[in-house]
């Protein structure tokens, strides 16, 4: 079977490609050029930077090492439309976006999958730590956590639909990260010891605020920092610089009590950043929209464990359907920093039951 592998140049997708090739599949490596790295569009031009982005180069070296064809697809426009614009819009609206999840469901398993099908590959593999199993009884594809709990990435894949899951392959999902690196070393892949990436790929130096200011200068207005009683404590240069739960960089004069203050909420209507003590960050309820059900949608309620951030330990909760693709969720115990714009993902054991985007 012909399978396309989305190759980022990292060790996980490299091993994914190598494993499939070793299994005898006809593997095509596809790398996505997602943003302009050349500085050609009138920006400052750094000598030698044109099209030598190291990760694409690494992907090509791996493809050559395992003897598969490799192509770089220019998806800059689609990435900008599907992922970057949303990222900027969300920050400007006082929310904290999750671009990796958007990229998975709206680009990798959408545009890239379409391209792959054009090349005769009916499935797309990635290096995600997650698993897909077909539940024959329910007639549904189920998404499961990766076998390595420390590396599980199912949180970022919750928005894949049944038709997308049917065409998704995660060859490293049943392996531990250490085993993946060991495989890469044993097979002589040139990226075996390459460090994992953590930053959001298109934001240089991890400076989200500067990125958003540059992309949307008109929607990033100055405002004030207030306490829960509405008392003005400081001025700020735009709510896109803050995220719920943030403690550092609030620009507050040291409080008499000495108790640290945290961002509790961001209010785009009046450009206010509301701060308060840590105890005020605790909440038990949230609502979510654009919910995607991977198991069959429950009639009324479902008992799950729910995760509100990538690194959040899933906590027991009850999901209640309150409208079309909308749910209200109640945790058994209060959770810290429920953040609009992030995803809430519901689990039944290791199975992703579904998930949605946190509204409030």
């Amino acid at each position, binding site marked *: 079977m012909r399978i396309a592998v989305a190759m980022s140049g990292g060790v996980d997708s490299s091993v994914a490609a190598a494993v499939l090739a070793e299994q005898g599949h006809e593997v095509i490596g596809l790398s996505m050029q997602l943003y302009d790295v050349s500085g050609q569009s009138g920006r400052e031009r750094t000598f030698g930077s*044109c*099209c030598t982005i190291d990760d694409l180069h690494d992907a090509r070296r791996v493809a050559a090492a395992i003897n598969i064809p490799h192509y*770089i*697809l*220019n998806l*800059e426009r689609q990435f900008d439309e599907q992922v970057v614009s949303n990222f900027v819009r969300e920050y400007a609206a006082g929310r904290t976006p999750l671009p990796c999840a958007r990229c998975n469901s709206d680009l990798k398993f959408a545009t890239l999958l*379409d*391209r792959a099908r054009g090349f*005769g590959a009916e499935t797309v593999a990635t290096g995600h730590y997650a698993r897909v199993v077909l539940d024959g009884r329910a007639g549904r594809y189920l998404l499961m956590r990766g076998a390595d709990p420390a590396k599980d990435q199912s949180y970022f894949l919750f928005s894949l639909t049944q038709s997308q899951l049917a065409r998704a392959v995660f060859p490293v999902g049943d392996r531990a990260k250490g085993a993946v690196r060991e495989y890469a070393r044993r097979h002589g892949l040139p990226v075996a010891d390459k460090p994992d990436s953590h930053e959001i790929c298109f934001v240089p130096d991890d400076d989200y605020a500067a990125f958003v200011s540059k992309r949307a200068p008109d929607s990033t207005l100055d405002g004030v920092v207030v306490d829960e009683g509405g008392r003005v404590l400081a001025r700020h240069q735009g709510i896109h610089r803050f995220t719920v739960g943030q403690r550092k960089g609030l620009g507050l004069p040291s409080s008499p009590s000495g108790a640290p203050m945290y961002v509790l909420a961001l209010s785009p209507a009046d450009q206010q950043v509301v701060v308060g003590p840590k105890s005020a960050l605790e909440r038990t309820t949230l609502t979510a929209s654009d919910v995607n059900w991977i198991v069959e949608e429950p009639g009324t309620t479902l008992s799950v464990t729910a995760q509100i951030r990538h690194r959040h330990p899933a906590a027991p909760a009850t999901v209640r359907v309150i409208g079309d693709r909308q749910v209200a969720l109640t945790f058994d115990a209060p959770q810290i920093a429920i953040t609009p714009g992030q995803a809430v993902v519901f689990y039944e054991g290791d199975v992703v039951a579904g998930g949605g985007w946190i509204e409030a």
Partner: protein
Amino acid sequence: MRLTMRVYFDYNATTPLAPEVLEAVIATTRDQFGNASSVHHFGQRAKAVLDEARSSVGALIHADPSEVVYTSGGTESDNFAIRGAADALDPGGRRHLIASAIEHEAVLNTFKALARRGWRTTLIPVDHSGIVDPDRLRELVTKDTALVSVMQANNEIGTIQPIAELAAIAHEQGALMHTDAVQAVGKIPVDVRALGVDLLSLSAHKFNGPKGAGVLWIKRGTRMQPILTGGKHERSRRAGTENVPALAGMGVAARLAIDKLASEAARVGALRDRLEEGILRAVPGTSVNGERSRRVPNTTNISFDRVEAESLLIALDLEGIAVSTGSACSSGTLEPSHVLRAMGLPTHRTQNSLRFSLGLFSTQEEVDRVVEVLPRLVQKLRALTGTTKLTKNTKVFS
């Protein structure tokens, strides 16, 4: 996947070596390692190899060998022609350069570099024919124009430019005339005297010679400054120890081109026409870009409605068929063609066009294979483009 047959239809990008060329490169590498500037036996032997090759390349373009300056290839030759002519001008003299809008990047980006240094540069527009209208040049050239650079044949669509007419117009105003003949040499007769140019670029690997070898032909008496300074190689016109094996290969390739030009042009031209007509007949929604009656015989550039060229290129490669779009960045990603854009084609056609370029080893069997495979691939891609919208690409080509 085991491919039973690989088809190489990208001769305008580069060509495989002719067997005789390969032999010459191997033999020279092995037997003539001397530095051609050395006084001793080894140097003399190497020098003799260069002289022999210089005669052959001179014969190919009807030039005196003493006017043939070796370079590393087409890009260096274009840089040398433009920068060398510009640098030789008196300060306060002519400060204007003209090229066509469909030149190779080697010319266009050299113009941009000189523009940053204060030169005024103008690009001659072309229409959908892909051929420069001499009247357009007449409107643009002035007593301030130092040099006009127009390619003899376009690399993407193959159109042949009226160089002799353009040269006469340039000369009326006292400007130099350069032609980038990289895509013409070996495909059509090239005669520097008949063209009436002052400077002509060619590259060995476009006519079954090795990479890393090229020529700038400089008409005797043309004022030039070297752009590579150093020793007195190439009569002090281009410094650097000569790449003797590659230049020997270029000489052999030149002889082969002279011998086979007429017969190969007819043979390859017939194959190209068979391919072109086959595709137009077999695949609905296709059309040829550029004036068909005035092209080099090996090239066709075809638009496929509702298909992204990038996808079709990859789908073809997976079937063992190597073709090209016009321009590829070094990373291998594709840009909208500046040539098709300059011809005034709508954006979607600058992104749905493929170039097929044939050559010495192309066969009818290969042509028929491509015509057989294409309809299925195009149909599949068109069926899927319903799901992925084709919208205007916002990327700026520079």
